[in-house]
């Protein structure tokens, strides 16, 4: 079905179910309980999960298949965001033209950068892409302020033309991005006892696009083209000797992954119409590299998991403060409570970077293949026990 093997179809189906049920899966704890802090089922974070998932899937098409490590992919994301916001400012608040434009602009931009950077390989290629991205960041932050908004970012304003749908909404505010009248920020809530689940239009819109991107990625991985790309990774010289020119293939992979990044950027702007230059900073490029490695390079699902983990830590761990900690340990005697708080405190709130660093190190030391390998190990463990319970995270199956 859909031109996929059974295994891939299963994987796609699992991802489909996971994304569609994300509002449930990510909100396991009842509202108001001490553990509610760990719920991630609110629109903004769910949107981020899938959007960065798209970004990482695209990045993996380049890095996972060809082995070319681009250190400047955030530039395409940034360019995508800027084009989308400009589309909102000039044309219409409908997200479709904005996203189409952002993919196209990112594509063109990546043809340009890819064509030049791919003349080199290995770390020389990485540094070339890094240099382009850093130049884009520096210029967007300073000299190009009229186009990019500089430090404050490119925002919508009341007096933007918006040719198709007029400047202000009926209430005198800036209109919000939507899909033919369906506003991206609209949510429906479902209450089940103490649990509250949020279903957000923007999230489902992004999730559908993510599924399409994921499907496309599977097709690319399994196609003769994908095979070519793997050949480039394993031995480019041999490919040359067989009379094949690897360059068009790598460039195509680079542009495809650039367009994925542009798509992610466009979606980010569609969910939240502001584009800041720091989206293009080298740390942002580094982040997608880390997501991919953390999840598992060259696997289909790995990058999505890596993206999820990093965004989860950034948004959840950083929000725990000492007040909340005291709440958790309140059942303990005073002295022990303070002691526990003192021990945990450096790792949460303003210390979330520390936790992130430690997680990076632990994962790479103990799970050389990233999170996917962790999943495999668990799966193997269960298989050995011959349990038939269906609680194995089957999603962690690598694609190769």
């Amino acid at each position, binding site marked *: 079905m859909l031109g996929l093997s059974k295994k891939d179809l299963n994987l796609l189906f699992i991802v489909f179910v996971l994304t569609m049920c994300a509002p449930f899966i990510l909100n396991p704890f009842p509202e108001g309980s001490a553990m509610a802090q760990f719920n991630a089922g609110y629109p903004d974070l769910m949107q981020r999960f899938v959007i960065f998932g798209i970004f990482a899937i695209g990045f993996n098409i380049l890095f996972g298949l060809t082995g070319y490590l681009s250190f400047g992919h955030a530039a395409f994301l940034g360019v995508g965001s800027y084009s989308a916001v400009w589309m909102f400012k000039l044309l219409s608040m409908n997200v479709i033209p904005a996203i189409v434009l952002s993919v196209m602009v990112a594509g063109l931009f990546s043809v340009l950068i890819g064509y030049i950077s791919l003349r080199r390989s290995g770390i*020389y290629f990485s*540094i070339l892409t890094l240099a382009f991205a850093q*130049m884009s960041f520096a210029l967007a932050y300073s000299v190009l302020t009229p186009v990019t908004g500089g430090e404050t970012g490119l925002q919508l304003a009341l007096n933007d033309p918006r040719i198709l749908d007029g400047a202000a909404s009926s209430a005198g505010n800036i209109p919000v991005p939507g899909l033919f009248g369906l506003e991206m920020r609209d949510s429906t809530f479902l209450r089940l006892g103490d649990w509250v689940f949020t279903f957000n239009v923007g999230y489902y819109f992004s999730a559908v696009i993510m599924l399409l991107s994921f499907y496309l990625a599977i097709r690319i991985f399994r196609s003769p083209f994908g095979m070519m790309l793997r050949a480039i990774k394993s031995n480019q010289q041999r490919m040359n000797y067989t009379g094949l020119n690897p360059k068009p293939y790598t460039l195509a992979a680079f542009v495809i992954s650039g367009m994925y990044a542009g798509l992610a950027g466009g979606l980010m702007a569609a969910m939240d119409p502001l584009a800041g230059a720091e989206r293009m900073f080298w740390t942002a490029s580094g982040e997608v590299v880390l997501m991919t*490695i953390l999840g598992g390079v060259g696997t289909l699902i790995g990058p999505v998991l890596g993206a999820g983990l990093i965004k989860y830590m950034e948004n959840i761990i950083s929000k725990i403060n000492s007040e909340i900690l005291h709440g958790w340990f309140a059942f303990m005697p005073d002295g022990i409570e303070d002691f526990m708080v003192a021990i945990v405190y450096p790792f949460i709130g303003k*210390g979330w970077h520390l936790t992130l660093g430690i997680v990076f190190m632990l994962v790479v030391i103990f799970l050389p293949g990233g999170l996917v390998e962790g999943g495999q190990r668990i799966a193997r463990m269960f298989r050995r026990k011959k349990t038939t319970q269906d609680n194995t995270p089957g999603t962690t199956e690598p694609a190769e």
Partner: protein
Amino acid sequence: MDAIILQILNGLDKGSAYALIALGLTLIFGTLGVVNFAHGALFMIGAFCAVTLSRILTISHTIVDETQKDFLGNPLKVDVPYVYDWFGEATGNVIIDWAVPLSILFAIPVMILIGVIMERGLIKHFYKRPHADQILVTFGLAIVLQEVIKYFYGANPIPTPAPDAFRGSFDFGLMLGFDANQIIYPYWRLVYFAFAAVIIGAVFAFLQFTTFGMVVRAGMADRETVGLLGINIDKRFTIMFGLAAAVAGLAGVMYTPINSPNYHMGMDFLVLSFVVVVVGGMGSLPGAVLAGFLLGILESFASMGAVIDLLPGINQIIIYLVAIIILLTRPRGLMGRKGVMED
């Protein structure tokens, strides 16, 4: 003319910091084949060695001064460093004043120790792993190191001045026959340049003229063969890692009076130093040094008012622009070897 001389001086000075960091980075690349994203953190730790020593020197006991009030109106507590008690106030002040140069002695063993621990405890296990894994683990380590420093020292920069004797600046212009105030340059930056030159010279001499260095160089060229000859190359590589850490650390120590150190100074230098190393050519020590100075000087020229007026924003991108041009005209950077990190 005077403006150009001044920017060359600036460039040499900036270049010495770049060159020192790139040198250590290349030592690790060249010998161990490891992409070390924690190298910037080593530079930062070096700087905090200086901060720590000056803290140690000013460890104090408090006495309550009834004649003065603090901001809440309570009697003021005055800290008196122990060194005052031991050596008298005058000598004590001199010792505290010279904290940064003294830190060199303090930093060398500390940095070598940190380097050896890092190599034995962590990096060693990653020699055979893909570069991607090395990047992830060293980046994680860099974050951890900098967060630990932040935990103890805060996020604000900490002023760490040079000794009194080196504050102020030197009028080069008068020496070269220009008017006064045309070419002035701070003493400490001249010291930094000289210091960098000495360190770079020492590293090269060590590799060139000692048996140890010879073996390491042989190991860089062909690790397997050296191993087959019955030489324990691993042990030597550990020492090289310690050495690279010490070079980065010393660069950090001496840098503190130029810019007050803060916990993320390593990250600020990290990307730049990678660019320097790659422009110099992977695995080439002279290349790293050359590229460091070249980029330093070009960066300085690009920040001249006349140049910015001509090409707005050029000061923001010059390093990257130069890197692109060099990499496109010379496939392996200035002096890179074939086949190193090319796949």
